Each structure stands twice: as C-alpha cells, then as structure tokens.
C-alpha cells in the first residue's frame, strides 16, 4: 500500500478517459490529483498522466491543440526535471505533438476508428516499469482513430538501439507479424519512451478487473507506480 504516491491527471477540454484513469489510479491505492489544463504550474507530484480521449475534439490533428495548452509548459518543465510522465492514447498523441516523444501518430490506414482487445508485448525492460519483463504479453483494449505510429526517416533503428520501443502489437503468444498490427504502425509499435516520458496507445485503465475482460492493465500501471506485485487489491 502506497497511499502517499500522488499522481496528477491532466484534464483538457474534451478529455474523456479522465474518470476511468482516476478510478484506476485510486483502485491501485495512489492518490489522483486532477490537474486543470489552465494551470501554469504543477503542485508537488510523484507522477503525471495525460489520459486518453479526444481533447479539443481531436480537431486539427489529434493532440495538437492540447499540446498548446498552458499546462503543457509546466509538464514539459517537470519532465525535464525528471518527473515520470505517462501518456495514454490521446495523451501519447499530445506528447508526440509536443515533441516530448519521438514520432507521430497518423490516422489508421483503414480511415476508421478501431476498438478491440489487443495483445501487446513488452519490447524492452524499462526502469520506468519495474517488474514488467521483456517478452511479457499483456491483453489490453485499444480504441483510436489515429494510432498509426510513424517516425522520421532513419530514426527507427536509433529508437530500437536505445531501447526506446516499449510496447509492440503482437499475438497472444507474443509473436510480431503484420496480422497483429491493427493500425499500420511502423514495427508494430504500440508504446515508446524517452527517458522518464512514456506514451502508449492501449488503455491499461480499462483492464483493471477480470469482469471487464482483463486485469493486465493493473499490472502495467502498478509497475509504473513502482508498486510491482505489492499493490493493494
């Protein structure tokens, strides 16, 4: 039990996974702190999450308008100072738009929104996710219209070399192939990290209980909170 861990959750206008993320963080025994996008500075926090869901209606480009919101200056500063920042789905898009993570998320090649259960494989061990072994396969929901991860030409090898690729879309056995790539992301990439900043397309906050279809989101978030297997139930 770690009641003292406070996790900021940034709410932009239009954000719609904020409630789910707050519920997930509370159920893990940490303290969610709602952060309004108009803030110019952050309170003292242990972690920050940019939750999923259509900030500013996803207008112009997903994440672009939120990336220009006042609070993002403070988030950028805090990230530079080493505060762990997690972007989920739209939060991932915002971090890319802001330049805190490499690459960008383009519309799915089908031109359609996609919502389904998806296996993802932990591509590399990360100090941000203690106890989450490389090769571990998680079952998590994805739900997005712009999830096709792309990087500038020549950047991909570098990302792999530096271990910045965190999650990849896979099959239930952890195999990577085209058939398990739901959105045309380069190298099946579902999540990337840049030092203490990480972004992922799947929604761990929706996979917190067996009755919702999976508890793997619990494991992922618990590990990011540094609670490992010891999280409260």
């Amino acid at each position, binding site marked *: 039990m770690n009641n003292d861990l406070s996790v900021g959750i940034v709410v932009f*206008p239009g954000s719609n996974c904020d409630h789910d993320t707050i519920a997930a963080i509370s159920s893990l025994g940490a303290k969610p702190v709602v952060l309004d996008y108009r803030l110019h500075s952050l309170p003292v926090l242990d972690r920050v999450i940019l939750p999923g869901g*259509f900030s500013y209606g996803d207008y112009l480009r997903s994440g672009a308008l939120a990336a220009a919101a006042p609070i993002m200056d403070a988030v950028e500063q805090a990230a530079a100072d080493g505060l762990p920042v997690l972007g989920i789905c739209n939060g991932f898009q915002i971090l890319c738009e802001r330049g805190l993570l490499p690459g960008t998320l383009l519309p799915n090649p089908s031109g359609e*929104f996609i919502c389904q259960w998806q296996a993802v494989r932990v591509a590399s061990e990360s100090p941000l996710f203690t106890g989450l072994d490389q090769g571990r396969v998680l079952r998590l929901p994805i739900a997005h219209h712009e999830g096709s991860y792309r990087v500038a030409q020549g950047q991909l090898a570098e990302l792999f070399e530096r271990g910045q690729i965190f999650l990849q879309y896979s099959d239930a056995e952890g195999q990577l192939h085209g058939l398990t790539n739901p959105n045309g992301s380069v190298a099946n990439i579902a999540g990337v990290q840049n030092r203490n900043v990480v972004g992922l397309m799947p929604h761990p906050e*929706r996979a*917190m209980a067996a009755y*919702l*279809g999976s508890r793997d989101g619990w494991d992922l978030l618990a590990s990011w909170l540094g609670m490992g297997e010891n999280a409260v139930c």
Partner: protein
Amino acid sequence: MLTYQDVGLSAREDQEIVRLLGRRPNELELGLFGALWSEHCSYKSSKNLLAQLPHQGQFVVQGPGGNAGVVQLSADWDIAFKIESHNHPSFVEPLQGAATGVGGILRDIVAMGARPIAIADILKFGTDEKAPGLLHRVVEGIGAYGNAIGIPNVTGSLGFSAVYDANPLVNVLAVGMRRHGLHVGADGARPESVLILIGQGTGRDGIHGASLLASQDFGAETEEMRPTVQVGDPFMGKLLMEATLAIVDQGLADAVQDLGAAGLTSSTAELAYASSVGVVVDVSKVICREQNMNPYEIMLSETQERMLLSVPKKNLAAVLEILTWYEVPYAEIGRVVAGDFLRVVAESQVLAELPTSVLVGGCPRLPVTHDVWIWDGDQPAALEKTRLELTWGYQVIGHPDCRDRSSVYQRYDSMIGLRTVWGPEHDVAVMHIEKGSPGLCVAVTAPARWAALDSYAGGIGAVAAALSLVATQGAVPLGITDGINAGNPENSEPHRKMAALIQGIGKAAEIFEVPVTGGNVSLHNETEGQAIWPTAAIGVVARHPNPEQPIADAPPYAGTRILVLNPPGKPDLGGSVLAEILGHPGSYPVLDVGAIQHSLHFLAEIISQAKNVGLLACRAVGIGGLFVAVAKSLITKTPMALGAHLVLAEDADARFVFNEMAGQWVLFVEPDFKPFWDQVFETHGVSVIDIGLVTDSPELMITAGRAITWPLIDLWRAYRKGGVRDVR
C-alpha cells in the same frame, strides 16, 4: 406573405389556428405553428395510438412526456433511457445526420439530469448499390459522435431490405443514470426564473427540419428544400453535457430542456407548457453564429449542442460560474412569468404571443377510428413441410441480417467508462454500475420482416424477442422504449400498419407486464409512394442480478446437453430469413404469449440458482432461428474447438431449426442434471426438450432421419463473409 402551405400546415389546421386564437397569426406566429404542429413535434397522427401503450409499472419513476423515461434500478440509482430516430437527416447527409442523431438523444438523457452511460444503434438499410456507402458513413457518424463524447456503444441491431433503399432507418437508444430521488425535467420552471440558452452559437442550420423535412415524404421537389445541414460538434457536446450535469447536480436549475427539432420554439414552448408558466424570449439576446439572422430564423434554427436552462435568480451567479469554467457560451435570453403563453420579443418590441395551450396542446390529432384496427392484409399460407438442406445453413447464417457485425461495432468505442462487462460481441449488453450494486442489462431488437407480414403479430414478436434477450441473464425488465418508423400516415395502409404495430407492442407490454416509458415516432418514411415496412425498434433495460458474472452464452465443454426451452408446438417459418431465401415469406405466426410469459418467469427463477440446476449457458433464439443460435454459440468461441450434435425427431424438418418464433431459448446444461430438466414440465409447467449434446469435434451435425454436417470453419466463413459455401 407566408402562407400555411409554406410552413407545412393544412387548410384545416390553418382554420383551427384562427378559431383557437380568435385572430390570424402573424408570419412569425405562423412559422411557430408550422413547427410545433408538424408531425415530428406534435405526434398528431400517432398520439392517440400511443395512448394505448401501458405506462405504469412498479419501477417507473417517469413515464412518457418528458425528454426520456426513467425507471428505478436500485435504491441508489435510476435509469433514464429513450430511442430517437434520425432517419431523414441521415439520408440527406449520412455522416452528420447520424452524428447529430447521437448528440440529440444524449442531450435528451442529460436534460433528465442523468449521466449517459451507454448508447445502442438500430439501423436498417437497403439492398441497392448505394446502401453500403450509406451504411459506411452512418456508422462513421455514430462513431464520430459517440467515441468523441466518450459514451460506449454497447449493443445494436442491423437489418437490410430493399424497402429501405430510399429510406434508411437510423434509430439510437441512449441510457443514462442519475441518483434516485433527483427530479429534473422541463416541468419545474417557476416565475421569476431566468432563461439561459447555452452551447453553440445559433446559425441557420436545419431551418424547417422538423416541419418540412421530417414531416413530408421524400421526392424530387424536397431536394430543393434541403435546409442547411446541421453539423455535430461532439466537443461542444461534451462541454455542454459536463456543465449541465454539474448545474443539475448542485440543484441550480429548476428546469432543463434540450433543443432538438424546431429549436428554440419547441424548447421554450414545451418548457412553458410542461411547467404551466409563461415565457418571454428576447431574440435579440440570442448569440448568433451568422449575420443578420431574423427572428423567424432564430426561433426555428436547429443548431445542435444547445440547451435551455431555467434558473432561479438566486442561483444565477453560481450557474454562470460553472458555464464559464467549462467554457460553454451562454446568454440570458428571457424569463419565466406567470401565465400560459410564449411571447417572443426583440428588446421592447413584441413579435409574437401565443398561448402554449394552443401552440403545444392544440394541434388536432388524427382520431383513432375502429377500422384502423382491422387487419385485412392477405395472410399467405405457411410453408409446407420442408426437408432440411445443407446449403440453407450457410445461406441463413450468411444472410445479411444474420451476419457478423464486428466490422460495424469495432468502429465504436464499446469499453470507455469501465462499465461494459458484455459489449456488442454478445446478443445483450451487461453493464456494471458500482461495486455491490445490481447491474444493467440492455437489449435492442427490430425484427422488421415479421411486422412487414403482420404488423400486430410482429409487434408482439418484437417485444417478446427483446424480453427474451434480457431473460437469458435472469435480468428483471424495468421498462421498454419503442421507436416506431412508418410511412405516410395520410395513406391508409401505412397508417393501419402503424396502428397495428403499436397495438401489438401495447398488447405484449401488457401481457408481459413491462411498461413503455417513452419512445419516438418517425413517419413519412416514404419515397415516391414506396413506404418502408412498419418497423419497431424495441429497447429494454433490465436489472442484472450479478453483473460481474454474466450467465455464459456459449457451452464451456464437450458433453454439455443442449435443450430448447419453449419450443413451438407448431413451428412456422413465416417471416423468417429462410422463408425469405425460399421466396415464400408466409405470415408471422401467432405466438403463444402465455407460454412465453411462463418461460420468462421460469428463466428468472432458474437463473438465480443456475449452479444448483446445472445451467451453464443460455441464448435466446432470434433471427435465423435455432440453427443460428446454436451455431453462434460455437463459432464465436476462440479457439473454435467445440461442436454440437443435434438429434431431432425423424419428422422434424427445416421449420424446427429455422423458425423465428420469439420466446424460445437454447440452454446448455450439465449432463448430471438431466433428471431435473427431464421433469421440468411436471415441476414448473414449462416445456423443455433435449435436442443433443456438445461435442469436441468442430462441426455442427444435425440428425433428423438423415445426418447433415456443417464444419464450423465453413459456418464461420459464411458468418463472417456471407454467401453460400460449396457443399462438401
């Protein structure tokens, strides 16, 4: 000079207006009448028919009349729910028409003070070359709005027929929850309160949408009357929803009304009428998005994402603070006064003043004459004994009405909100409410082919089918909402079919003791004389006893017995998919409603003790009959490892496996409990027959005299892709 025809009224209605007012209305007033006396707003052709529906029930908190019905789920929570149609707008502009349909029904739920937790979409499309494109864009629109505003789409229904070629149907059900005991609606406005219009700036969008577009048949000349298309803005919709719910939660508004058809006119007039007060609306205060809008345009604009609040003066500051926080534009546009009128002013100049008793309550309704109820359509003979054929299995499960829907529902976010225990991949949705609380079971049906043949019997069947679905979970139905879609009510045949359909729904609701708490009527779904089938979309919400552990809808292991609960004594293919394939539609059979009612009670009782009687899984028989119900239980499992062997009486034929008579269930039962089930007729008075067992060979085999085998992989292919597989 504007005439009554210009606003879609008849000469008789025009005379009635003059008689009731004691004077001629001015142009603006005539425009207001045109909107509120339209079919869409006044329900003039259907209201007397709808009066037949039972509205009372032990769980009803609010019946028809408000923006949505409300039923009690638990000691803590009420459920608001309603179906709304957006058929005409979706044909004109499929993406925006469907999107604004979702936005509109969500605002109805919010206007009841409830937080939306689920949507479901009921769609009917044609079979011509335009249909796939329309479907694609309608689904895009429903997803665009629902996904962005963040309400999961948890179930739905999709059907096809050439009768929908020029009149596709887009009905959307929304469900919301609010604290039990909270009362919010349009009926609480008190004199001295301030009227605040919040949300999107008013533009010329959709002017005449209600009176003309939705209340007339389509034809070449309506092309020219297309109003400016309304564009949905789910982003504003989200801000509006959050702000409204915050205001309602703090009890700061005495009345809330969304702006839908006929915009400011209907919302102000209906709020005044429901609250028995007068209202003064100053059009010069309305925030306009476009320049030089005249009072007529401002009063009739159907710009989306707007809501009307009536706020007592003492709460004004707090309300404005909330609106500012959420960055929702607002304007004080008027006030509530004692009286019974809608007065429209521009600063000090009075532009219109009409008694709401005339404007809202005065529209002459079509009387219900006796002959409306007499069904005289031809009743084609039932299909004679038909030997089961291999190809029919593939044809039926590959029929557009039975096929896999994942390509549609994967475009909807079905999981946001952390409540979706069962989503669109199941026949019913199961929603979690909170730890320790009963859950919610939501199901929709729209079996149009049945009502096409016999609207009355089909109406009964539609309700029975919807209740059969929630019964598979042992859930207690709390209420029904119905979306009626029909042709031109001025033509005798569509009118009588609609009447029979409503009567059938009412009859079923009465027998099964489930109230109809609200719904929608969409008429004039008729193009160049071709009317759609009378089509009822039925939505049911039910109390789920144990949402964290739904009763499965597929067998867990080989050896499981397969039973049918309430098999029809005389199976009849009338109205089924197979009958259509065979070109011999027949007539929808008369159902034994007593036996169905009995079976519904039995299921409720037995599921509460499922473990004690070895009940492992349960699925309602629906479109495609028993065959499709069993096949879907097998092919939707991953991996597809279990099969079934059905052993039927020698003289059992296609009628037994493909009939679509509502109120039958497939039960999967542990073999050890066979003695209990063998005696269930004696002990419980319901009929149950054992038709076979689950095997570990991935095929469906039916022995009825001779044996026929369908490899599951082939059934799966037909289910996924349609068409007939080659005979092996």
